[in-house]
C-alpha cells in the first residue's frame, strides 16, 4: 500500500457524509448552496449555513435532481469547498477516494464523476460504489452469522429496498419508491400553508418542524380518531414555536404539560395535529398523495418475491433500516409490525434501525477500507491513464 489514509465520501442528495477513514465518524455537510434574504451578498456552501444568522426564506441550489447528480457546476463548487482547507483538506495525489452513487446511476453521471476525480482532483485511486453496498458491508461486518440482508434505505429523494444475498445485491429485487425526505417536507409545507400559515418559502424551517414533530403511526385510523378529539383527550396535537432569529434560533415543540404563560405572547406558533403522522405515512402509503406506487412494506414483500425461496427466512430475519427518514419515532416498530402480518408465520422477522442511520453507510465505507481485499477494488490513476474509463466499467459493481 502506497497510501496512509482513505477519503470516504457518501455523496447524498441532501447531505454529503465526508471524512477520512481514520476518523471516528463522518462530517455531515449539506450538499447544497444556500442563499439567504438576510445576507444579500453571500452564498452559503454546505455547512457554512451554520454561520447564517437568519435562515428564514433560504433559497436552495442543489446538485441532485430526483436522486441523481445533474448540476455538476453546483456539485463541483460544493466539493471544492469540502476538500478545501476550510473544511476537510485532501491531498488527492496520495489519497484513495471512496465515493457513493445511487443504484442504476446513469452512464454519463458515472463518466462525469470518474473524470472529475481523476482528471480534475488527480486522486491517487478511486472506488465508485452504491451507498447501499457500503451499508450492507457494514451490516455483514457486524452480523457475521447473517447470510442475507434486506436493506431499506430511506433517503432524501427516494427509498430503495435491496436484497443482499451473501454480500451481493440482487439487482432484480431492487425496488425504488419515489418518496423520501424531500417529498415529506414539501407535503408538510403544502398542507400547513393551506390550513394555517404560508410557509412555502420556508423549507429550512419546515424541515426542522418535520424532524421535531412528526412520527410514524402504529395504528393509523386510531390516531386519526384521537386527533379528531377536543381538549385533553387529543393527545396528539402540539404547538410548535417557530424561530424568529432574534430570541429563538431554532424552533421547538411546546411541552403540552406546561400551561401557556404571558411570556409566550410574541411567539409565532404552528398547530400540528394529524399532520404529525399523515406526513411520514406517505412512505407507507404513497397513494395517499396520489403517487401510484407501493409503500415500503408492500415493496419489501414484492422485492422478496423475486428472491430464491431459500433466502426468504434469512431476508426476513435481517431487515436493516438506514437513511435520515428512518429517524421518525415509530418507524422501526411500524415496519416490524406490518412485515410480521405479511410474512409467513413460521419465519422470524427481525428489523434493525441503524444506531446512526445517516452515517451508517459512510461507516461501512470506513470498515471496507480495512478489508484485505480493499485495494484490489480500487482503480488507480495509472490504470485509468492506461486503460481509460473502461477499466471502471470492469471493476466497479454499480
Amino acid at each position, binding site marked *: 500500500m502506497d497510501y496512509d489514509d482513505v477519503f470516504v465520501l457518501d455523496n447524498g442528495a441532501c447531505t454529503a457524509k465526508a471524512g477520512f477513514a481514520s476518523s471516528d465518524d463522518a462530517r455531515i455537510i449539506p450538499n447544497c448552496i444556500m442563499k439567504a434574504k438576510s445576507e444579500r451578498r453571500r452564498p452559503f456552501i454546505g455547512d457554512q449555513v451554520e454561520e447564517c444568522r437568519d435562515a428564514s426564506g433560504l433559497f*436552495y441550489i442543489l446538485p441532485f435532481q430526483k436522486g441523481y447528480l445533474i*448540476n455538476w457546476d453546483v456539485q463541483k*463548487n460544493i466539493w471544492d469547498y469540502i476538500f478545501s482547507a476550510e473544511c476537510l483538506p485532501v491531498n488527492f495525489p496520495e489519497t484513495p477516494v471512496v465515493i457513493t452513487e445511487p443504484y442504476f446511476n446513469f452512464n454519463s453521471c458515472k463518466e462525469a464523476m470518474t473524470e472529475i476525480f481523476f482528471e480534475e482532483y488527480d486522486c491517487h485511486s478511486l472506488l465508485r460504489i452504491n451507498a447501499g453496498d457500503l451499508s450492507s458491508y457494514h451490516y455483514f461486518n457486524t452480523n457475521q452469522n447473517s447470510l442475507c440482508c434486506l436493506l431499506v434505505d430511506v433517503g432524501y429523494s427516494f427509498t430503495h429496498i435491496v436484497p443482499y444475498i451473501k454480500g451481493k445485491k440482487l439487482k432484480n429485487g431492487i425496488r425504488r419508491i419515489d418518496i423520501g425526505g424531500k417529498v415529506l417536507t414539501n407535503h408538510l409545507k403544502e398542507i400547513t400553508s393551506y390550513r394555517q400559515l404560508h410557509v412555502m418559502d420556508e423549507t429550512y424551517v419546515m424541515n426542522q418542524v418535520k424532524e421535531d414533530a412528526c412520527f410514524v403511526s402504529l395504528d393509523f*385510523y386510531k390516531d386519526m380518531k384521537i386527533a379528531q378529539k377536543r381538549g385533553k383527550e387529543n393527545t396528539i396535537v402540539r404547538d410548535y414555536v417557530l424561530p424568529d432569529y432574534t430570541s429563538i434560533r431554532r424552533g421547538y415543540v411546546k411541552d403540552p404539560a406546561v400551561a401557556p404563560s404571558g411570556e409566550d405572547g410574541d411567539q409565532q406558533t404552528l398547530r400540528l395535529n394529524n399532520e404529525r403522522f399523515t406526513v411520514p405515512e406517505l412512505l407507507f402509503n404513497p397513494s395517499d398523495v396520489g403517487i401510484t*406506487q407501493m409503500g415500503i412494506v408492500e415493496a419489501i414483500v414484492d422485492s422478496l418475491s423475486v428472491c430464491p425461496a431459500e433466502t426468504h427466512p434469512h431476508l426476513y430475519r435481517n431487515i436493516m433500516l438506514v437513511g435520515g427518514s428512518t429517524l421518525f419515532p415509530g418507524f422501526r416498530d411500524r415496519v416490524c409490525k406490518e412485515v410480521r402480518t405479511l410474512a409467513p408465520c413460521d419465519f422470524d422477522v427481525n428489523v434493525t434501525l441503524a444506531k446512526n442511520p445517516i452515517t451508517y453507510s459512510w461507516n461501512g465505507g470506513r470498515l471496507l477500507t480495512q478489508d484485505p481485499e480493499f485495494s484490489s477494488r480500487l482503480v488507480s490513476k495509472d490504470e485509468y491513464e492506461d486503460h481509460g474509463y473502461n477499466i471502471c466499467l470492469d471493476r466497479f459493481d454499480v
Partner: protein
Amino acid sequence: MATARESGRLKESGKVLDEATRKRRARKALEALELDNFHEDPHADLVMSKKVPKFQETLDNRSVKRKKGKSAEYYKQRFRKTFPQLVEEDRNYNPNPPNYMSAQAAPSKCPERRFCAVCGFPSTYTCVKCGARYCSIRCSGTHLDTRCLKWTA
C-alpha cells in the same frame, strides 16, 4: 397564465372540471412535491461581491501541487444533461431490466384511501365540480371558497 387559460375554459364547461383538467391538476400537485424552491432567488438581481472568495482561489491556497483546474462553468457545459434526457439515454444504453425504469415500485394492490382535501381527516364525500374529497359541510364550504374551481394549488 395557467390561471387565465383555465378560468376561461371553466366558463365554457359549465363550471365542472373535465377529466383532463383534473388529471393536470393532480400532476401539477405531484410536480410541486419535487420542487426545491417556491420563491425566486433572493440574490437574482445582485452581482456577487468581490469579497466573496472565488472557489478557485480557495483551491489554490492549498499546499497541494496541482494543475490549473477547470471552472465550474466548464462542468456545466461538459455534462449538461437534464433528468429526462438521462432517462431516455438509459432506455437505449440499458434496454433490458433491471434498470432505472424497471426498479420503480409497482402500483399498490391496496385500495386507495380517501382524505379530506381541507383538514386531512378521513372523508366520505366527493366534490361534484372538481373531484376533491371533503368530510363535512364546513370543509366543503372552505373547499368551495378556496380551491375548488380557483387555481390556487
